[in-house]
């Protein structure tokens, strides 16, 4: 998961590395993901979200579809 100044430099990077262009995530969305995943990471009860929880978290910030589904077999 890499950082880019703009969509243009993402496209240039994908072309240079022959990697398909995949979803872009804004910094606001990225921060929400970070809080969901890690805000309690230093506590006793911390754990990685389960698959269905991950789907809900992604959907809550507008990231939907099989790319964001950890159970998806579309990408084998």
């Amino acid at each position, binding site marked *: 998961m890499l950082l880019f100044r703009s969509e243009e430099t993402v496209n240039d990077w994908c072309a240079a590395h022959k990697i398909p*262009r995949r979803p872009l995530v804004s910094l606001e969305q990225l921060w929400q993901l*970070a809080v969901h995943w890690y805000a309690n990471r230093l506590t006793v009860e911390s754990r990685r979200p389960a698959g269905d929880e991950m789907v809900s978290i992604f959907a809550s910030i507008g990231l939907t579809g099989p790319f*964001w589904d950890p159970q998806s077999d579309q990408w084998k």
Partner: protein
Amino acid sequence: MPDLDLDTKVKLAIYEITAETGRIPNASTVSDKIDISEAEVISAFGRLHTKRLLLPEPGDPTRIRMAPPFSGVATKFPVEANGKQYYAPCVWDAYGIAAALHSDAISRAIDAHTGEPLTLEVKNGAPILKSYVAHFAVPAAHWWDDLVFT
């Protein structure tokens, strides 16, 4: 920590030491901190890997490559927080370190294509938003197939 199971004790020790020092501890350091054998710690590392809470160093089960959001090796996502320097494995985890530590943080990162310096900052519990974007090259179903690449 008398009421906690072994894996939870090891997990907490890893994160406490990392937060305090900026460096992910090895099995020996965790063993010293919670007074259990190094072999037990290494076994716990394996179980925590199964739970996707850490990634052991390939070829060396005594060391940890990643305990997300922290990296055990230097990366292109250094994060300054609480007067210490940490390393994040990826841009998501650069924010993740600020979220985990509940602190202000600055990550002096770069554009992955051009190398242009790009700074991420979290202040008073919120990011200072810019128009930068993160690109997720790997679908969620395969993030842990090769976590270093992801």
